[in-house]
Each structure stands twice: as C-alpha cells, then as structure tokens.
C-alpha cells in the first residue's frame, strides 16, 4: 500500500504520468457529492499504477455517477441507462490490453441494469465495477431506487418507501462465479483508495459497492456512519483490503474476515449495524470469460485466410 500523500512520484518508481494526465476537466457534480472522491481515487490509482491514459477506458450508463468518464482524461464511453456492463464486457472482449473501469449508479446497475449485473458477474471478465450507491435516482431528481431505505420520501413515493431495499452485496454473493465483492465509503479516501486498488489488481470482475453521498437528494443518509465511525465495521484480514495504519485510527471497530469464506461473507452481508466495509469475498480461481474471448486474437492474417478458404471448400458442390 502506498500512502496517500500528495506527491506520489516520491514513492520510488519513476513516473511518466502525473495525476493531470487522468484529469478531464472540472467535474460538474453538486458541491459535496461523493462522486468526486471516487473520481479522485481512480485517477490516483491510474497514476500509481502508471496506466497509460490511452489504455484506460471508463464505461458508464446514465445517471450522475455515470458522468464519471467525462471527467477522466482517458478514453470513455458514456452509454445508455443500465447498459454499462454489456458495453464494458464488449470493450474488454478482444482488448486484453485495456483497463476497463465501470461507473454505475444504484438505479443503473440494480434496477434497469439488473439482468446485466447478474450475468456480468457470471462472465467474470477482467474489469473493475464501481457501484455508486447513493440510494436514490440523482440525475432525474429524487425518485426511489431499489436500494433506497424504507421510509425515505421521494418524488415517486411521497408517503415513504415501504419495500425493503435490495442489498447489492448480498445479491452479488448469490450470483454464480462471483470472484470479488467489496464495500467502501466515499468519505474515507484511504479506505476508498485501498479498496479500489485491490479491486483493480484482482484478476476477474471486481464488484465494489461504494456508499456515496448525495447531499442534494439524500442528505444525512450516511451522516451517522460518517460522524460515528464505530457504526462501521472495518473488515481486516491478511488477504483483505490493505491495512493502512491511518485507517485503523479512524475505524476502531474492526473484525477479521477471511475473504475466501463465502458463507461468512453472506452472513456479514446481512449486517447493517455496524456496517461492514472491506473485502467480503475474493476467489481468483473462478473461470474468466476473457480466456474464451481472447481466443484466436493472435491468429495471423495468412492463417485466417487459409482457414477461411478451407471453410468455404466445405461447401463446394
């Protein structure tokens, strides 16, 4: 783990790319919006890892969080509401050299995109998926989201929501071929950074739910968690999210959790007070769809032409 000091270039490896190389202009989120913290974390990871900006692709759907690619100075794909994951998988399919980051909102991923969510987890392509969970529809101005808490009043449920919220962590842990599931919060840059860095390092699809503040429409939602860090249970383990000592000072409430233990992860996922953050589950032995989609990638043109001619000959009368 690196420390989050301002000047990472000091950290030993000679750097070609500075933070600026990943910064795509002034972000237009509301003041205090948690999206910005995530953006910063990702830009830093790109810089830390010295990812060539032209090899990074940020893919998103539609929503406040999905504006993410616009503020990266890399390649980006700001597509359709709910459809970030199929596009991201397609981008990755024949381009193992690209680093694909997905920014998706709770509506984008868990409502209109829910079918793709299940299947992207199963394909387990080598991409990093960030669920910006502000528990509300931000861009369209305060409608209920599947993750909105019971009782929240929104423009579509002015009398308050009465169905319990979908639990993205629990759901994901129930999908087949799940290989990396973590949870973090936008307001702790250390934990956010460490979690996303681990997600990015993971081979396979890493799914990170980020509790993201929306001061405009769900102000106070995470107030308690933010003010009283003991409401958060930081998961620790030697195979977990790296333990910067500074983190330990903030999140004094800690619990050891072995991320290879799926059953324990599912039980943890039920818990909301204190709310576990960190790595719930990781399994790098899951089949990765890339191993299939990259087949034939290196076939030289001559071999293709030959095979094509052989194939045509099969149809000779």
């Amino acid at each position: 783990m690196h420390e989050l000091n301002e000047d990472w270039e000091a950290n030993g490896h000679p750097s070609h790319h500075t933070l600026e190389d990943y910064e795509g202009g002034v972000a237009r989120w509301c003041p205090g919006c948690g999206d910005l913290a995530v953006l910063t974390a990702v830009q830093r990871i790109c810089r830390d890892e010295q990812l060539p900006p032209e090899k990074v692709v940020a893919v998103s759907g539609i929503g406040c969080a999905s504006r993410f690619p616009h503020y990266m100075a890399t390649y980006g794909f700001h597509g359709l509401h709910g459809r970030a994951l199929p596009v991201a998988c397609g981008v990755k399919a024949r381009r193992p050299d690209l680093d694909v980051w997905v920014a998706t909102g709770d509506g984008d991923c868990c409502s209109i995109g829910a079918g793709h969510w299940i299947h992207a987890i199963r394909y387990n392509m080598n991409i990093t998926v960030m669920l910006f969970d502000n528990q509300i529809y931000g861009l369209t101005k305060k409608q209920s989201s599947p993750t909105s808490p019971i009782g929240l009043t929104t423009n579509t449920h002015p009398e308050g929501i009465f169905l319990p919220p979908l639990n993205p962590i629990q759901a994901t842990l129930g999908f087949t071929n799940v290989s990396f599931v973590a949870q973090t919060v936008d307001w702790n840059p250390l934990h956010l950074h460490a979690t996303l860095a681990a997600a990015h390092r993971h081979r396979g699809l890493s799914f990170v739910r980020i509790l993201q503040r929306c001061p405009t429409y769900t102000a106070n939602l995470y107030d308690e968690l933010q003010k009283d860090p003991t409401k958060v249970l930081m998961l620790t383990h030697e195979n977990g999210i790296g333990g910067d000592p500074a983190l330990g000072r903030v999140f004094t409430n800690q619990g050891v959790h072995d991320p290879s233990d799926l059953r324990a992860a599912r039980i943890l996922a039920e818990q909301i007070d204190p709310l576990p953050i960190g790595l719930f589950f990781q399994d790098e032995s899951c089949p990765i769809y890339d191993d299939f989609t990259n087949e034939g990638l290196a076939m030289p043109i001559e071999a293709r032409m030959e095979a094509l001619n052989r194939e045509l000959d099969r149809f000779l009368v």
Partner: protein
Amino acid sequence: MDGSVKPASKTAGPAHASAPRKMDQQIVEIVSDSGEGAQKAGQTFGAISAKMGNGVWTVEIIPAEIKPPARSRAGASGIRIRLGTGPITNMGDEADLVVALNEQVLFGRIEQGAYKPGTVVLLENKWGTDPVDHVRAEYAEAVTEFRTKGLVVYELPLEEACRGIMPNPRLGKNMFVLGMLSRIYQRDLELALAEVELVFKRKGAEVVQKNREMVEAGYRFATENVDVCVEIPAAAPDQAMVVMNGNQAVGLGVMASGMETVAMYPITPATSASHYLAGSFPKVGGIVHQAEDEIAAIGFAIGASYAGKTACTITSGPGLALKTEFIGLAVMAEIPLVLVVVQRGGPSTGLPTKVEQGELLPAIFGSPGDDPKIVFSAATIEECFHFVVLARKLAEEFRGPVVLLTDANLATGVQPFPRPEPREDWLAAPLDLSAWNEDTPPYDWDPVTGLSPRPIPGQAGGEYVLTGLAHTRQSKVAYDPFSNQLGCEMRSRKLAALRRSLKPPAIRGNPEGDLLVVGWGSTLGAIDEAVDRAQAEGHAVSSIHLRFLAPLEPGLAEIFAKFKQVVCVEINYSDPPDAAPFQDPSYRRLSQLAKLLRNRTLVDVDSWSNVHGQPLRPGQIHDEIVRRTTALQGEKSCTN
C-alpha cells in the same frame, strides 16, 4: 409431370423402360413426420444435382412444433427441391412430384397450395394394411380424396422394400427415397453413392455401406415400379460452386469480412447463423458471444466496435425491437456496427418460423429522434455472403450502424453459387494503435460528407469520451441549439454521401412500358421469373429490385415516370384494395416499401402484398402482372 402419366395399378406402377422426358425444371418434395430423415435425403439430392450442373433451390418444410404428433395434418416435415437446367432462384409454384411417407402430412401441404392436378404422389402404402382400423380407413379416404383432386397417386410398398436391407427399415428409408429420386430424375448413380459416402463417412464404414445399399435398392425399385422418368439437362458449371443456406452465407460473410465478434441472443430464424458460427468462427479466430438478452448482445457488440473491432449482432424482429435504443446510440455516437436482421412474420411473436419483409420501416424509423443509418437488403443467398462483407466496410467508412435485412426464406433456402474468392482486403485492417494527432477532434466531420476518422482506445492522443448526448466535434456534451443541429446535419450527410455513390437500379426489361414491378429482398427470384414469363407472353412489364433502402437508390422517380403503373411486390401487410372501409383508395394502408417510395418520388406507387408467411410464388406474381397489364391495356383501348 403432365396428366398423361398414369399409375398402372392401385399398388404400384409396372416397370417399363420408357425414355425419359426432357424438362427444363422440376419441383420435387419429400414429406414425412419429423425425424424420418426427409431433409437429409432432399439435401443430398440437391447436392448431387448441383454437382451435375443443375440449378437448384432447396427449402425445408418445417412443422410448427418441435415434435408434432405422428401422421398429423399440420405436422408435415420435409423438403422441397427445385432443379432446373439454368439457375433456380426460388422455390417455384406447385410441385411436380412428391414422395410422402404417410398420407396425412399431405393435407397440410395441399392446404398451402403446394400441389396441382397432375402432381405425382409416390405414397407409402403400408398404412392401407395397418392393424389399427381408423388408420386404414383414413388412408383409404385420403387416397380417394387425393385422386379426386387430380393428384396422380402411386401407392408403393416403400418400407416393405427396405426391409431386406435394414433391420429397422424406418431408418434408412430416406436413402431409399433418394435412390428412387435418383432413378426418376436420371441422376448419376455413382455420384449419388459418392455423396452418400461423404454424408455418412463420420459414422463408419458399415453405416456407409448400408446406406449405399439403400440408395441402390431405391434406384432399382423405381426402375421396376415407377413409370416416371425425367431428364433435366445440365451443363457442368464452368466455375467452382458452393451450396449453402442464407444463414450459413451470413456466417461465412462474417468470417470473410474480418469481423471477430458476433454477439447474439437466440431467436428464430436468425439463430442458425450463430449455430454455424459457433462451430466455425473460432477457426478464423472469431468468437460468438451468447448474451443474456438482445440488449446485452448489441451492447457487447457496440463495446467491441468502440474498442476498434467492428462487431456484428444477428437477430429477428422482436430482437430488433429491443435493440432500437442501442441502435440510436450507435447512430448518435457514430459507432460502426453490423446488424443482420433475419426477418420473420410479425407483428409481435407472430409467425416465428415464417417469412415476412416486415422490418423495413422499423429498421429505418425505429429509434427515437432523427436516426440516419444505412439499411440494405440481400436478394439472394450469394448476396447474404457478399453483403455482410460490404456491411462491415460501410459501417467503418460511414462510421455507424449498418442494418442488413435478410429473411426466413433466404435463411432456410439452399442454392449453389460461385465460390467466393476471399481477399485479404475484405478483412478489417489490423488495429492501428499509433498515436492520434491531438489536433484532430474525435468527430472531425468533413463539412460536405459528414465523414470523420475515429480514434481507437489505445491510440495515445485520441482520448475522448463517447456519449449519446448531443455533443460537439470534441465529443463534449452540448445542449446549445447549434451543436445539436450541426451534429444531426453531419450524420445526415453521410447518407447523402453514400447515396451519391450509388447507381440507379438496373431495369429488367424495357425501360418503359405499362407496369413496373418493384421488389426488394428475397423475392427477387420469384419476381424475375414472373416478369420474364409475362414479358415472354408479350406483356409490357419490367421490374427493378432494390438493395439499398436507406439511402434509397437514386433515379427512381425518373424510372417510374416511364411506366403507367408502379407496384411494389413485397411480403408484408397492405390493406386489400377492395375492402369496404377503404373504398377511397387514398386511405388504404400500403406495404412498407410503397410508403417509402411514395414519400420519395410522389408517384402513386401501388402495393401487391400479403402476410401469408410464405415465399411469394412466381405463378401468383405472374397472374397479378397479367391482370394489371391487361387492365392497363383495357384502359388504353377505352381512351383511344
């Protein structure tokens, strides 16, 4: 077959060495319950004929259910083979001869107008002595009914004749039928046996031997029992020919185009293209991604295209409906993409296995807002191949989605055509990830053509964020009036640029006359045949057949002006002209191409169309042409 051929007895015709009659084309069917191998027999018969240099068109007869009950009227499974001296381009009209393994399946075919008085029926006669009473009764009744209808029925002990060779004669009977047909149509027996060898090779020598014996037995049996013998002269083809159906041709086209990714979700009748590709695409380094639904399929293809490798997605009507939102994105953000739509009967789930040309307007107008994209259609199986190759090129050159329309008729029809000689320059160029000139914006629209080169992830200096929002040349979101107007204009100009490079369609027949028939897609063969016949009979009819629907090919108004009447012949819905609520013809709802052409040319283009779910037959079209030209001549003589 004409009426003079007579079966000698109720059970079988006697052997006699009548000289074969020369015919320039014949239509043969084999129908049975499903699972009896009729299709394999027919395909092999078609292949042999193609090898002998005959023109061939085969099309499967598919029952509605996966396993319909045995001996049911709607359960006909089988194949039609049309062969001729010259090229055969469609399934034709009524059959000349049919081999039927039971009598019930014929009823469904009769209802669909597959036969005519004089059609020879070679019918398995074992049902006439079936232990079950009602089976015997049904059989007897049916035979009488067939004869009343003028069919020329030979009742033949087919299964019985097989018994000596195969322990279970139901297996292998199809090869016996192949043998019979080989004799009746004077196929080269050695060629037939060699073909059988090819087909069964993988199952081992013993199976090959048994099936060869069945073919020989069938050949002998026909010689001895069927007094029908036809010669269809053929010239050995002067070039290498391949034979396949339209979906295989699409699959091969994908492979020859250099595309590397097909993302799909199963849907009839498109799926078999993906089946073919799933087996063969990896041989040229490609992959088939079966996505979780149609939306994900096009999303995946778009992602792959964005990343530099133009990809393809293949679907049918309901799948197209689901993809419209993504098509709009591909238009807006100018993402090359090939979308093959194998049309089937609609609306809604409609007639999933049957043919229709109902996606023309949905393909052109289905997405929100102004959505200029290239839409074109294949008229032959050969074009299914070549147009996919073309589609990829167009998609990249014009930087956007290209919709290629085919249909169930092309998808399941089989026809020989010259073996394509693939060229390296058909393949997409390998990814060029060299640096992008930072001064060139991601949408560096040429002000006249709207065209622009596109940066590919991996190209340093080309970093941009693709978006479906209104945007500037820099791909920056812009809500101001001028940016949106400019973007729309630039995208529209690409169609104009393509249109300018198109030639007016070729006219079949005189460039002026009474009637001009306009068609598109798989009806080409049937229309051509009908028009040729009518022309030969002296009717002043010509035809044109469109490939490009958006943009439309140029010169149409000029061509139309030379004819008294223009009629679109297509397989999609138009109101019948004579129905009471439409007495005022200006309120009639017309067929899809007719709407496009009227808008474009302001000529009073008429429609002759139906939604029967069947390929159009040349005979029907011919009759309609004659009806119209005769009326037009009548009008003329009235006014003269």
